[in-house]
C-alpha cells in the first residue's frame, strides 16, 4: 500500500507545482494587462542577463563547436567524407548543441541569480514592503526579467551558434588544412536559416522556462538565508531538467514545421 502511495504523492506534488507555475503565468498575464511597462527595469535586466551572459555563451559555443568538429572530422576521414563535417556540425550546433548547452549555462548563471535575488527579497520582507506600497511583486520583479529573457535568449543562442561555427571553421581549415570552400559549400548547401531559427525558437522557450522556474523559487523562498540557498539550487536543477525534457519535445515539434536538412 505504501509503495503505491508514494508515486501518487509525487504525482500530486508535481501537479501542485505545475499549478503554482500556472498561477505565476496568470499573474504575469494580469500584470501585462495593467500595461505598466517598466522599461528601465527591462533594460537593466537585459544588460544583466543578456550582456552579462555573453562570455559564458561564447565560450560554451566555441568549444562545443571545436570539440564536436574534432571528433567528427577524425571519424569522417575514415569514411572519406570529411568534407561534410561543416554541414553536420552546423546542423547539430543550430538545432541541438547550441541551444541546449548555452541554455543550460544560462539556466545556471541567470536562473541562480533570479532565484537568489528574489528569494533574498522575500525572506527580508522586501516583497512584503512592495505589496504594502501597492506594487505587485510579479509585475515589478518577474515581468521585467521575463521580457528581458525573451529578448536576450534567442540572441544569446544565435551568438553561441555563431561562435561554434567559427570555431569549427578554424579547426577544419587551420587545424586539418581543409580548403575553406569545401567546408563552406557543404555547410551552406545543407543548412539554411530555418536551422538557426530552430535554435533561436528553442532559446526563446528555454528563456521562458528558466524565468518561470527561477522566479517561482524566489517568490516561494522561506526560512531565511538557508531557504534562499535551497531555492537557488532547486531553481537551477529544475530549470536544467525541464530544459532538457522540453528540448526533446521541441525538437519533434519543430522538426515538423522546419524539417531537418531542407535544402531547397
Amino acid at each position: 500500500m505504501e509503495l503505491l502511495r508514494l508515486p501518487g504523492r509525487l504525482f500530486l506534488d508535481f501537479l501542485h507545482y505545475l499549478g503554482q507555475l500556472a498561477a505565476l503565468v496568470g499573474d504575469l498575464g494580469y500584470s501585462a494587462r495593467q500595461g505598466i511597462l517598466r522599461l528601465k527595469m527591462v533594460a537593466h535586466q537585459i544588460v544583466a542577463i543578456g550582456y552579462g551572459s555573453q562570455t559564458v555563451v561564447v565560450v560554451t559555443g566555441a568549444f562545443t563547436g571545436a570539440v564536436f568538429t574534432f571528433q567528427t572530422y577524425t571519424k569522417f576521414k575514415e569514411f572519406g567524407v570529411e568534407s561534410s563535417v561543416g554541414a553536420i556540425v552546423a546542423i547539430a550546433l543550430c538545432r541541438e548543441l547550441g541551444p541546449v548547452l548555452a541554455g543550460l549555462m544560462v539556466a545556471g548563471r541567470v536562473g541562480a541569480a533570479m532565484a537568489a535575488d528574489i528569494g533574498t527579497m522575500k525572506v527580508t520582507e522586501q516583497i512584503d514592503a512592495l505589496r504594502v506600497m501597492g506594487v505587485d511583486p510579479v509585475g515589478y520583479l518577474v515581468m521585467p526579467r521575463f521580457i528581458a529573457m525573451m529578448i536576450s535568449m534567442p540572441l544569446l543562442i544565435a551568438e553561441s551558434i555563431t561562435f561554434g561555427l567559427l570555431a569549427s571553421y578554424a579547426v577544419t581549415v587551420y587545424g586539418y588544412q581543409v580548403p575553406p570552400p569545401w567546408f563552406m559549400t557543404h555547410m551552406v548547401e545543407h543548412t539554411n536559416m530555418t536551422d538557426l531559427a530552430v535554435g533561436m525558437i528553442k532559446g526563446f522557450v528555454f528563456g521562458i522556462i528558466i524565468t518561470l522556474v527561477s522566479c517561482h523559487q524566489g517568490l516561494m523562498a522561506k526560512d531565511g538565508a538557508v531557504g534562499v540557498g535551497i531555492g537557488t539550487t532547486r531553481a537551477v536543477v529544475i530549470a536544467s531538467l525541464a530544459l532538457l525534457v522540453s528540448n526533446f519535445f521541441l525538437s519533434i515539434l519543430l522538426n515538423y514545421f522546419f524539417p531537418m536538412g531542407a535544402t531547397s
Partner: protein
Amino acid sequence: MSKAGLDQDVFIELRQVHKTLGWQHILRGVDLKVMRGETLVIIGPSGEGKTVMMKHVIGLMRADSGEVIVDGVHMEKMREREMRPIRAKVSMMFQNAALFDAMTVEENVAFPLVESGIRDRKEIRDRVQEALEVVDLAEHGKKLPVNLSGGMRKRAGIARAIVTRSQCILYDEPTASLDPMVSDVIDQMILRMQKRYHITSLVVTHDMKSMFKIANRIAMLKDGVIRFLGTPDELRASSDPLVHDFIEGRSGVTA
C-alpha cells in the same frame, strides 16, 4: 468626522480575529477599534503576535476567521489585487525596516512616491529631503542600506513610511534601537503628524516612555487577545497585576 454616527469614525476594526501559524494559535479572537486620527499604541510581551496583528491590518496576512475592516472595507474578503486602494491610504514601517537593498536611502524613500504616480522630479526630491530631515538622515541619502547602522536603517524605514503622508501609518517598534534623543525626535514627529495632518497611527512599542508621550489609547496584547484597552491614565490606574508588572518591567525572576 462629519459623517453621522460614531462608528463612522472607526478607521480600523478587528472583530474576533483568529490566526494560527504553524502549530501556534497566535491570535485568539482579537477585538480592537482604532479611531480616525488617534494614536493607538500596542504593547505586549515579545513574540505575542503584535507584528502578526499589524500585518492583518494591511493585508499581508489573512485571518483564519474573524473580520478585519479598514476604512469601511473588509480586508478578509479582498483579493490581493483589490487591496491597492486601501494600501494607498495605509502605510507601514516594518520592524526590520525592510529597505530595498539594491537602492540608496533616497531611492528607497522616493519609491512610494514614484509608485503612487508622482512624476515631478523636483517635488519628489523635495519631499524625500523633507522626510529624511524629519528622521535626521539628510546627509546619508546616498548610502546603501547595507552601509547603515541599525538605528539609521530603522529611521530610513520610518522616512519611507511617512513620505506619502498616508491617512494611516503603522509603525512596528519605531524607537527600538534608537538612542533617547532620536527616540524623542521620532515621538515628536508622530505627534506632529497627528496634529498637522490628522493621521491615524498604530504603534507597536516596548518603549514605555515613548508610549506615554504619544498614546491616546493603549492596547495590551496577551495570550492572543486584547487584555487591556484604555487611556494612559487608565493604564496607570489598572488593577491588573500583569499589566502593572509589564509596564514596570518586573519579571519576577531574581538573581
